[in-house]
């Protein structure tokens, strides 16, 4: 517990001094609030707008989580398919890397044209952003399975499908969760980008409206919410990892 406190103390100290410097700078320079609001103002706006922000957060979280789940399911299907067929693997892996180089922000307007202003285009943006880290970590994790284990179970008479279930998928889980953590932090951002381009509700919409009205304190309030939600998602994924791969954490604590 003592070590934990010490771990938190350093970043907390830096954060507080950053906020204090910011607050002092705003006072001292007299910069107008629409350009740079003081942290106190941001907090006041956050408190005042909390019910509205909560409503928008719900749509954003829904899009983010749905998109993330879609990405996970797609990645799982692809990883299993690649494991079954080296031919699919050879064909798909370069495409997978290529997909990551396509700027999502450039595709997002097209998605709005194709799928309208509802939740679907946001889910698609999130899924596109999250797919790559999840798929790569899954595929590489499955590859990292000990070939000796696979051979041993094959001699026992397990089928290809059972080998995936008994060896390859569990072996991939630690790597999968690392990828999922990265994807989790992207997911909320992806949903917000999707909402910027056109939506009826969501934190992205709220931010666009606030920006246009020069209510910079509200923009910052929304940013705080986005960070908090991303952190929460990250924490949930971490918890899920602890629950589903306890053996991995025991292995690491033994080393």
């Amino acid at each position, binding site marked *: 517990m003592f070590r934990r406190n010490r771990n938190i103390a350093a970043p907390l100290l830096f954060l507080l001094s950053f906020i204090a410097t910011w607050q002092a700078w705003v006072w001292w320079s007299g910069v107008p609030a629409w350009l740079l609001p003081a942290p106190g103002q941001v907090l006041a706006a956050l408190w005042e707008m909390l019910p509205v922000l909560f409503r928008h957060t719900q749509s954003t979280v829904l899009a983010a989580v749905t998109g993330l789940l879609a990405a996970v399911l797609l990645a799982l299907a692809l990883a299993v398919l690649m494991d079954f067929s080296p031919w699919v693997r050879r064909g798909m892996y370069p495409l997978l890397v290529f997909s990551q180089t396509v700027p999502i922000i450039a595709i997002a307007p097209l998605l709005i044209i194709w799928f309208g202003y509802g939740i679907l285009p946001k889910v698609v943006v999130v899924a596109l952003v999250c797919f790559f880290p999840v798929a790569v970590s899954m595929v590489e994790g499955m590859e990292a399975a000990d070939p000796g284990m696979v*051979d041993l179970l094959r001699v*026992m*008479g*397990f089928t290809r499908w059972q080998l995936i279930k008994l060896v390859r998928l*569990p072996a991939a889980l630690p790597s999968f969760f690392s990828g999922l953590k990265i994807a989790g932090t992207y997911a909320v951002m992806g949903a917000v980008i999707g909402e910027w381009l056109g939506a009826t509700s969501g934190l992205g919409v709220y931010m666009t409206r606030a920006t246009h009205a020069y209510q910079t304190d509200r923009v910052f309030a929304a940013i705080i919410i986005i960070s908090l939600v991303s952190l929460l998602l990250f924490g949930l994924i971490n918890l899920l990892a602890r629950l589903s791969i306890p053996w991995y954490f025991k292995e690491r604590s*033994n080393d």
Partner: protein
Amino acid sequence: MEIILEDIEKSYMVDGEPLPVLGGVSAAVGEGEFVSLIGPSGCGKSTLFNIICGLTGPDRGRVVLGGKTGARAGEVVSYMPQKDLLLPWRTVLDNVILAREVAGENRETARREARELMPLFGLAGFENSYPAELSGGMRQRAALMRAVLARRRVLLLDEPFGALDAITRTRMQQWLLEVWDKFRQAVFFVTHDIDEALILSDRVYVLTPRPARVCLHLEVGLPRPRRAETLTDPRFLALKRQIMRALLG
């Protein structure tokens, strides 16, 4: 005969050149027998095991398992590799019953049987531990338990005690003999330790360096049960001298 190997040859391609590993190995293991295979390191012992298991095919020669050609290896032999290869995400209990799940056997039945055998394998109290929480010797015993519980006619053991310290190894050998005595499966045992081969086996095959052939075949014939004193028995020493001469040329 449980295993018959006839004139097995195998080469690997290394940098475009064929590297002959097995140069016509013939051997046999009978019902309930304990047979060892000794050879210098890198002489292709593991390759021979992979061929018996059907993980790779021989270039020439014939493998007959369980008295008939074309039997699926996994139905006759159960194999324990050098590394324990326990699944890290399964508890000890669920690791040792692995082979029982292939046949679609009820997990609870297999678990019940495994629980009763835990003391014999020195794993009582560790049923629900993960492999990472066990010592090297315990992991090796769990791996052997997994092989024994598969209930095949032959156990293939590939240098199972190679990574253990001398004292643990001697204990494990004594204990392996107890297990063998109880289950009466035939054992085909690979090692590069002459003492280990002699103290355990009914018969010993000695292999030449690559490409491996059998250069000596011995009936051990020492009375059982064998104990630590057997190591200094004159008959034991005579056999040991014979094997050393064959190995060192």
